[in-house]
């Protein structure tokens, strides 16, 4: 299973998690884990997801999530977990 790490950073507003989760549900992307904090009014979320059943390609998902973030004034990044694994695990 290829996991995708989604990070969401930006000023906290109503409905951030709702809109991100709606997009994921609509695209058949399963959420495996969520951690979220708010520091000084800044929203910071990391999700571990499984996109192996998604119809769209990883590139499309990354592009669309980035666009979703732009609309809400957030920075949303989708990255394959391997970039973190290779960098931080020997």
């Amino acid at each position, binding site marked *: 299973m290829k996991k995708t*790490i989604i*990070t969401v950073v930006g000023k906290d507003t109503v409905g951030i998690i709702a809109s991100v989760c709606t997009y994921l549900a609509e695209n058949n992307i399963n959420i495996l884990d969520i*951690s979220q904090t708010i520091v000084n009014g800044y929203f910071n979320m*990391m999700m*571990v997801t499984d996109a192996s059943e998604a119809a769209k390609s*990883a*590139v499309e998902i*990354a*592009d669309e999530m980035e666009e979703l973030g732009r609309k809400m004034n957030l920075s949303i*990044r*989708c*990255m*394959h*977990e*391997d*970039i*973190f*694994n*290779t*960098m*931080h695990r020997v």
Partner: protein
Amino acid sequence: MINQREVTETIDMITRENLDVRTITLGISLLDCIDSDLETLNHNIYSKITEKARNLVLVGREIEREYGIPIVNKRISVTPIALIGGSACETPEDYVTIAQTLDTAAKEVGVNFIGGFSALVSKGMTESDEKLIRAIPQALATTERVCSSVNVGSTKCGIDMDAVRLMGEIILETATLTKEQDSLGCAKLVVFCNAPDDNPFMAGAFHGVTEGDTVINVGVSGPGVVKTALEQVRGQGLEVLCETIKKTAFKVTRVGQLVAQEASKRLNVPFGIIDLSLAPTPAIGDSVADILCEIGLEHAGAPGTTAALALLNDQVKKGGVMASSYVGGLSGAFIPVSEDQGMINAVEAGALTLEKLEAMTCVCSVGLDMIAVPGDTKAATISGIIADEMAIGMVNQKTTAVRLIPVIGKGVGEMVEFGGLLGYAPIMPVNSFSCEAFVNRRGRIPAPIHSFKN
């Protein structure tokens, strides 16, 4: 399981500290394109490049988006053209047509540079080599994306001073033919000693004859990441400093290894090497000179610079080498002037001279790189500078290179603007005493005594 701290660290490296994969370079052998008819040869070259590199840019973009790591350049290197054009090219003009074919092919597949308009003449020039070298000014003036390099020396063979003398003239002629663009042609021309066969970085990349048919070589970068890591250990001992550089270089190189393996798999091309270099860009915070300042220098060029650079270069290699299954290319810290804001600042402050840069090249990964000099610099003086740099490479068994830009119509202190990754540079003064009688001696410098290891 990956934790949030690690994820944040990686994302900060990418978004704030300019971590990127500098280039995925696809090496393509053109040996099977050789033909005695020039038109057929050009056709073969175009077909092979456009077929092999068809998906390069697309795959690069896919990996970039999927892993969230910027891949700044997708490039191609080819077999040194002097070896390919020998039987078809009767004049330098014939070689220019090959350069134009390379340029057209590069544009067709969407890469921003194609390297390999090159000749390897460390011991002597064949007729074909000399024709190619004489074609370089015209080739670089009439193409946009072609890069050229000439290897004029090696530890094993010595230095071909006839080629060194010729290259002084060729650099000046290239500068003259491209004077409308601040002599930009010279930014695409490198003179080497001990040129590696698998260098992915431009302008010196070519696909060596020892390589297979196609190969993927990847160059990583990350001066900003090292600089930020060192900010955390200010005032601490050298042991801590070295460990910090090594750890950072390891992480940066691992990203390169991941990208290289993915690209290799998706393009169905064997993985060659990772070039674990610290390659700066003109962007603020993406500077090797800033790392030297962080180590404790007021400016790059101050006393202690060579020692600090030696330390940095060595730790980058030590950290990076374990992160990749194959390491090669130039691997180390690059010290170009125009491509590094900290170096530009050092020149403007009067801290950095050509002579200090020469000393620094003894311990960095390459050589005198992207240095603008006055347009009235004599060809023999340029040859003298090349000879000095080649001697450093030959004796120290390392790669050295010269990429000088005599800016026609401009003098010391004036600025030149090359644009994009090539940056801008203040013109530096050159020692004006003559070396003409030395440069005009025919023949070659013999290989040094320590080259005889058999």
